């Protein structure tokens, strides 16, 4: 693990999980009128825990590029609807919109924290 990776900590993974969440929720919103579609969401805790495992390619050569954290395993869960619908669709658009906004906010937060860590590093390198 490089110094930059250590300084960034968990935030790149958190941003990746939130980006994945955004994608899944966008899929839910797209399928708001698809019969028998069941809304899903990413279980953040599980996704983060799985990404924390040894999920990287091992670097054995100087020319190998270290892979960024990736979520290869899924932590998708079905959402429990508040009210059942006749066509078997469990997407509740207002809930999905709220969840989308939530994920976007958390993504931005992770980005902001990573930025903070990077600017700290930069300060240290520059020595000012």
């Amino acid at each position, binding site marked *: 693990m490089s110094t930059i990776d250590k300084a960034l900590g968990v935030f790149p993974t958190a*941003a990746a999980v939130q980006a994945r969440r955004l*994608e899944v929720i966008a899929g839910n919103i*797209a399928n708001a009128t698809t019969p028998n*579609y069941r809304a899903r969401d990413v279980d953040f805790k599980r996704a983060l825990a799985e990404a924390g495992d040894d999920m990287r390619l091992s670097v054995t050569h100087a020319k190998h590029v270290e892979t960024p954290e990736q979520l290869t395993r899924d932590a998708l869960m079905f959402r429990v609807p508040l009210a059942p619908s006749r066509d078997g669709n469990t997407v509740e658009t207002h809930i999905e919109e709220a969840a989308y906004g939530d994920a976007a906010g958390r993504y931005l937060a992770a980005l902001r924290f990573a930025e903070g860590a990077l600017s700290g590093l930069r300060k240290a390198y520059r020595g000012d």
Partner: protein
Amino acid sequence: MSLSNILKLAGGALNAQTVRLNTIASNLANVETVASSEAQAYRAKRPVFASVLEQASDQLQSGFGVKVQSIAETNRINAQVFDPNNPLADAAGYVYRSNVNPLEEMTDMLDAARSYETAITTASTARELMMRTIDMNTK
């Protein structure tokens, strides 16, 4: 990268809603259409949506897109109206009206327009986050 995939998903949703708006326009245009037999009479059309798994270039399982699977016709009966002066009337003097319910179409249109707007918002939020990520640490 999953953020750019959202744009693809939203594009699919926009396409599906456009097809839906098109069928609604076609149904509304044919509200007053009459025909000389039940088989020829206009029947309201409805798109049937299905979810598709977008194949991403990386191995990650990505979000589910939407596509128009087929366009179904409603099976509500076509009203028979006695109108012997109509050139399309059958031997007994009846014409068959289209089975479109304008109220139903109007509410469906509102729903389609709202879904369309939601898809656009989804895409623009994703775009904003992408730009924000690109601009990381440049200030």
